[in-house]
């Protein structure tokens, strides 16, 4: 990981989003104290925790495969963090029992305290793992791919449920995910990671509307990338000019990114791009056309109202409603974002 600087506000729900190998789990483990950074510091409430051993960090960690103690009952699993405390700070047996009962209720597993993890479903195990982490009243809650191993329906339920839990406990929560929908739906702020670097930190709105790098725009939602050239304040793609604001951008090669939803069939004689209609399908509202844009190697699906529809194989003008342009820097990387349209 390189140059990672992240400030998480108390009570925030933050997602670490990135493809596998982007370093998101490593970052989470550094926060937990399970990995130690070669350089840099980890601060909890402004207090240096870099050299604090895991045991003393008071982080609630939920592992991807839950890591439940299989030889203990659900209740013993949840009470574990309290039972292992040194005698001075350990609650009484009765207090531990009461806390376990309360947590079982909180995660909606009342009455299952006597079961063993092997006798639970995936979603239930996940909730036991969460209750176990909450039992120690952690300073932060860390979740590593919390829904990774669950099927789609349980995932959806648990997502909503996790959001509720966060609201009720007010705990600062960081979770790792590779699923952008999950990150966008759950988190207050999303940290997009790629190859050990933070690409962007922002609210879901910011990531959708003002992606800071080509990586972010293609990772968060679908995007089309067109190789363009900036010269004398004009952006050209395959000889056509695109009406994109180039104010303050360096001339040379650049990439224009736009979402498939931001392109539409334009009126005859106007439009930024041109394409050929590959197929047409009727939809309730109009026509869905598969269009091959000149100079772009994949096809796009565009919904357009009936009256604008073109004939199969015919050429149609297309206009961009929204796009972002990333000029190349001296290394040929497309980094610093322009505003685009």
């Amino acid at each position: 990981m390189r140059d990672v600087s992240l400030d998480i506000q108390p009570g925030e729900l933050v997602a670490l989003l990135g493809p596998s190998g982007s370093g998101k789990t490593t970052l989470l483990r550094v926060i937990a104290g399970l990995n130690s950074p070669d350089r840099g510091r980890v601060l909890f409430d402004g207090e240096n925790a870099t050299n604090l051993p895991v045991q003393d960090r008071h982080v609630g960690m939920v592992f991807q495969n839950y890591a439940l103690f299989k030889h203990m009952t659900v209740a013993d699993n949840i009470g574990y963090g309290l039972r292992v405390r040194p005698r001075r700070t350990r609650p009484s047996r009765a207090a531990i029992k009461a806390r376990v009962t309360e947590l079982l209720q909180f995660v909606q597993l009342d009455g299952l305290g006597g079961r063993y993890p092997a006798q639970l479903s995936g979603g239930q195990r996940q909730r036991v793992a969460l209750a176990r982490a909450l039992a120690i009243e952690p300073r932060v809650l860390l979740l590593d791919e919390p829904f990774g191993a669950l099927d789609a329906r349980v995932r959806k339920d648990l997502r909503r449920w996790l959001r509720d839990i966060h609201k009720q406990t007010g705990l600062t929560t960081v979770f790792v995910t590779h699923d952008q929908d999950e990150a966008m739906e759950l988190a207050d702020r999303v940290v997009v990671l790629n190859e050990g670097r933070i690409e962007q930190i922002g609210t879901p709105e910011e990531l959708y509307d003002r992606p800071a790098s080509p990586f972010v725009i293609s990772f968060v939602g679908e995007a089309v990338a067109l190789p363009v050239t900036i010269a004398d304040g004009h952006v050209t793609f395959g000889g056509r000019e695109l009406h994109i604001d180039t104010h303050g951008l360096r001339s040379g090669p650049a990439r224009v990114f736009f979402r498939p939803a931001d392109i539409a069939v334009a009126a005859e004689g106007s439009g930024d791009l041109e394409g050929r209609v590959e197929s047409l399908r009727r939809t309730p509202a109009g026509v869905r056309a598969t269009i091959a844009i000149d100079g772009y190697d994949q096809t796009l699906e565009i919904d357009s109202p009936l009256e604008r529809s073109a004939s199969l194989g015919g050429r149609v003008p297309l206009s961009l409603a929204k796009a972002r342009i990333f000029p190349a820097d001296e290394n040929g990387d497309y980094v610093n974002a322009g505003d685009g349209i």
Partner: protein
Amino acid sequence: MTSPSLVGKNARRFTAPSVIPGFGLTFGYTLIYLGVIVLFPLATLIWQSSGLGLSGLYAIASEPRVAASLRTTFFISFAAAVVDLFFGLIVAWVLTRYDFPGRRLLDAFVDLPFALPTAVAGISLAALYSPNGWFGAPLADYDIKIAFTRWGILVALIFIGLPFVVRTVQPIISELEVELEEASATLGAGRLQTVIRVMLPPLAPALLTGFALAFARAIGEYGSVIFIAGNIAYVSEIAPLLIVVKLEQYDVPGATGIATIMLAISFAALLLINLVQAWSRRRFGHV
């Protein structure tokens, strides 16, 4: 309702239907194997000694030399199995959990006591621990004698029993997820607590199996022990040796008598271990 004929057919079935056929064949083989190779010789042994009667067996067992050898055999075997339990666990842990140069080679060494003719082990151990051997000489300076004493027997039995513990525990350790330790640590548990509360319980059934195997092997061990034990009657004479001695004196009833007593004690001991194991599986077995 299913048709009566189907119910009848299923009810007569001895086992659940399986995709792999051949239950009859394999079950028959199992019975014949156990019968001819294991139970028949044991039955012969009991039949041979049955002429003695219970009072005869008791007379043999209470013969001071026999009683001493039985004590030597069982106590030292037990002690050796206990030592193997600890060292075997450590060796298995190191070989599975850590990656270091030469790990595979070291792993292969563990099996040597299996492969070595036990007499070879006995001779080399005797040479090492004898008062002028590499280990024996420095120890002799401190007045510690290993070879030709009961300690020698212990050393030999530890040597031959170790692989049993290592090999039974190893696969279970490799199945233990590292995340379990990490989870325990994030919940505030110290290292010792993590080991005792999280790591050891899932290993308990396998450890007991390894212990039982090492113990059983030690009871029956002959080759390596007789070279290092010195075989002093009443002190370092093991029961299997006494059987041989009796046979050489054509005292067949005496020999089979000792054998039957050993069989009974071994069986009782292993049954006990199995019961403990069954309990531990129930207790910790939800793995």
